[in-house]
């Protein structure tokens, strides 16, 4: 996959060997044959004058040979012409078909396709998840042979003959005939902050920022330190292919004409999931401070979102690195509605807070007053109330009876005391011991001995 050992093929001799070999086998051989025929014809023509070529030993010169060579090639001119016409006609077709800049570019291309590349050029470079060089060149638009340089932050899916071909990672690669880059995938961690507009359970619009970091799924195998350093962005080929084939094409007039795998992770998955999660909560729960012993709502939502994303985005060849969510606030995409909603909810929220404060103040006040009661004054007040009540009870009995009947008066006294304990709050706080004492008093008055089980009852 990674052609780091490809240096060998880039030695100067290797850079041209393929093209030279193929050219010699075809054009070179044809030309040699044509020259040989031309030479034969010329020698035949010279016939008897052959000694003219067989130079006299005293006057050896290079010129007779050169002259013979020129004469031979002159005869071979029609064949040479044919060797010119063939690439010229092919170049014309390639020039038109692939809209090359000129015929020369088309000829360079057809020569590369037929005989192989000469040197390292042309090259296409992919880095930062895109083609940074050569996208509009013949190699970029139509295909190789060409050199493809892939930086370690990018993976490339190529296509050839109308089919996907292979997945290439960091390194220098040789693109084959008509092989070109189909998709580039950015292997670096992707960080997106995206505002999700959702409705609460009661249908009130809220907005929350999702802060997501993810990247292409890496290889499952453990990697050594050296591997981690040489390949900081590992990937699995399946994940890259999934990401490449999961690109969505949008409406032609849409400002975002394609939605890549990264966009899909955020918009298609995170957005929908967060919206679904938020729809399960009531507004007050979302914006209220956490109750003691409860998780903060944002953290709970974040955990749910992260769990669902980790489970789902593998389908796009992606892996979640971190999920955070921002403040949840009442908001719509319409500013005026947002203003009114914010005003309404925050006012109510303040009132709620005030009510809570007021209730706490009342409780404090009550506690303060109870303290006062324990500080005799209040207690005296209660005792005074009792003395008045009991005295009134005795006085009323005397007034009704006209004479003192101790039994009735004592009974009335205890009854009044018992009535006092029937007050809801007093009854609630009355200890059983006090109630038993009251019963015992009454029993004593009636001359009955009090049994232990009756005491309990």
């Amino acid at each position, binding site marked *: 996959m990674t052609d780091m050992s490809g240096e060998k093929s880039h030695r100067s001799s290797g850079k041209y060997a393929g093209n030279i070999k193929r050219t010699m086998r075809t*054009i*070179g051989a044809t030309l040699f044959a044509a*020259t040989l*025929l031309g030479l034969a*014809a010329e*020698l035949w*023509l010279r016939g008897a004058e052959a000694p003219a*070529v067989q130079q006299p*030993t005293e006057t*050896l010169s290079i010129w*007779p040979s050169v002259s013979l060579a020129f004469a*031979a090639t002159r005869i*071979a001119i*029609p*064949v*040479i012409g044919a060797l*010119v016409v063939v690439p010229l006609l092919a170049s*014309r077709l390639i020039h*038109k078909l692939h809209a090359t800049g000129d015929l020369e570019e088309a000829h360079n291309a057809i020569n590369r396709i*037929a005989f192989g590349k000469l040197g390292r*050029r*042309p*090259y296409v470079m992919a880095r930062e998840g895109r083609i940074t060089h050569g996208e509009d060149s013949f190699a970029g638009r139509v295909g190789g042979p060409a050199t493809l*340089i892939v930086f370690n932050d990018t993976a490339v899916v190529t296509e050839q003959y*109308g089919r996907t*071909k292979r997945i290439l990672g960091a*390194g220098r690669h040789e693109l084959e*005939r008509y092989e070109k880059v189909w998709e580039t995938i950015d292997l670096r961690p992707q960080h997106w902050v995206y505002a999700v507009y959702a*409705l609460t359970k*009661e249908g*009130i*619009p809220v907005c929350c920022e999702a802060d997501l970091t993810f990247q292409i799924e890496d290889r499952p195998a453990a990697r050594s330190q050296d591997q981690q350093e040489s*390949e900081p962005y590992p990937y699995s080929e399946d994940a890259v292919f999934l990401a490449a084939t999961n690109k*969505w*094409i949008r409406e032609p007039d849409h400002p975002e004409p394609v939605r890549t795998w990264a966009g899909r992770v955020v918009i298609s998955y995170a957005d929908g999931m967060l919206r*679904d999660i938020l*729809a399960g909560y009531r507004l007050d729960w979302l914006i209220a401070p956490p109750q003691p012993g409860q998780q903060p709502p944002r953290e709970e939502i974040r955990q749910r979102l992260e769990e669902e994303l980790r489970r789902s985005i593998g389908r796009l060849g992606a892996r979640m690195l971190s999920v955070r969510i921002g403040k949840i606030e009442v908001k719509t995409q319409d500013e005026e509605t947002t203003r009114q*909603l914010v005003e309404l*909810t925050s006012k*109510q929220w303040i009132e*709620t807070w005030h009510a*809570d404060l007021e*209730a706490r103040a*009342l*409780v404090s006040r009550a506690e303060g007053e109870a303290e006062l009661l324990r500080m005799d004054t209040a207690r*005296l*007040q209660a*005792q005074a109330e*009792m*003395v008045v009540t009991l005295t009134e009870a*005795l006085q009323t009995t005397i007034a009704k009876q006209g004479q003192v009947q*101790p039994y009735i008066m004592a009974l009335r006294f205890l009854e009044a005391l018992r009535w006092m*304990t029937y007050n809801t709050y*007093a009854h*609630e*706080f009355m200890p059983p*011991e*006090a109630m038993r*004492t009251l019963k015992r*008093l009454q029993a004593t008055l009636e001359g009955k001995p009090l049994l232990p089980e009756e005491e309990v009852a």
Partner: protein
Amino acid sequence: MSSDDTRDPQNGISTTFDSRLITPIRFYVQTIVFALGMAAVAYLYPIVLLPNFRYMLEFWGVRPETIASLISLLAKLSTPFALLFGWGLGGLYVCGWLAVWLKRATPWRVGAIVLTAVLAILWLVSILRFVEGKALPEVLAYSFQAFGIPPKVASTLILLGLTVGVPVLPLLWVIRPLEGFLARFLSILWLLMWLFFVAMGEFRAALVLLVSTIATGAVLLVGLRLTSDYLLPIPRPDRETRRKVLDLLRDHIMGVNYPAYIVTDEPYEEDKVEERIPGDKLSRLAIGPGLILSDCDHAVAVFDGFKFKGVHGPGVIFTKYGDRILQTIDLRPQFRGFMVEALTKDGIKVKVPAAIAIQVDPHDKTPKLGEPLPYSKSAAFKALHAQRVEHQGDEPQKSEWASLAREIAERVLQDIISTYRFDDLYGPYQPGGDPPRKAISAKFSAQTAAELEPLGIHLIGGGLNNIQPADSAVYLKRASSWQADWMRKTMLKQAEGQAEWLRTVERARADAQVDLILRLGRQLEELSAKGGELNPEATLRLLVSVLEGLVSQQPSLGQLLPEETMRALVDIRSVIHD
């Protein structure tokens, strides 16, 4: 170093390249010139050295016979050297001649024509050297004279015809539409002339012309045939495909070809197809096919104006007479987002941003390396067949399959929403579970998929955004309702505070009562322990004494009691003691 020079710090890949692309012509010119120069120098050294330094060599003891043999050998090497030199020279001719023809600027074009003319003259001159100037045989001479052509002129015409035929005949066999009758007729004519030429006794010239013609024709035809293997992105062309490509090239030479299209990745359908090689779809002279080229993510529907010829591709698609592209089909998932306005069961208008992702049904095939993006041809046909003309606005417009899917999805969603009451869309009182939107979304996907499936369209996924009321005042009303709920809670909270306060006060009150009761109980026990009689009188006295005790022990209590109570207490005591 070029401006492209970079070195990635992490992987250390050097991206230093030659600043300019090495063109094959420049490379081979430089190589041949260098090779010829080296060969010339290598040959020149012994040629110059041996004759001029023979005496010195003899002085050094080299025998004269050896030197003579070496010189003789060198003389014999002149022919192989001429062959090698001629070979290189031929290569330079090819490079130079091709280079000037590849330039499009007018001066270069003029230069190319002049160079061609010069080379033609040079060749003609070299051919004429083979002509011995022999006369026509009598029979032929008389025959020509019968047509009023003098024998001398006839022989010149024959020679001219034969020489012109060397480059023209091979071209005629290639160029459409001349390769038919005309090529055959002229070939026979040329052969006749050649026979006349042989009859004249011009054997050498005849042989050179014949070999030249055959060689030129062979190079041209074989060369074009071999080159056609590389003209189109076809993996291993079979015989039939090769023939088609060659015929396409031959049609293109004279401009009688069918058009050639490239399918591009432009967003709009009308820009997707580029007619790169213009041609006549109804050309009567074309023998080769037309051409459509597409990448692995596009197929095309072809028709000839009358008949649908199927969906083809991706890759190289050959077309026939009358064929044209009906429509391109993007095989990648198509995503369509749209806003649906619908009425709920209780008549409230809502807006729902919805989205679908669709593709031409691949019949459960998934993309694989080494294959084009999958699709089913029958599904593609159905999808195209389902497209309709929309009459909205002034001009009727063709609705594409992706738009059609969107329209169907819109209607499905409207139908689903109409079965829900407005409040049910949000489920504010629903106890737990998924929000209703999720259930609606699932229903939407299932129903849309079911409706699209017979149309050859596969629904990859569908989803809904927030179901929004058309009137944003609903939001305010909902917020008000939420506010009312909270007001109730606030009041409850306040009431809770009050209750707590009451409880605390009453608790203090109860404490005081308990204190009194327990005091009574203790005194009663004390009395009982002393052996006192516990009759009603004693009990009453005890009760009253406790009350008095309370008052007397706490002077401040006495201050709190009304005077009537104090008096009544004294009265009660005196009455009891009396």
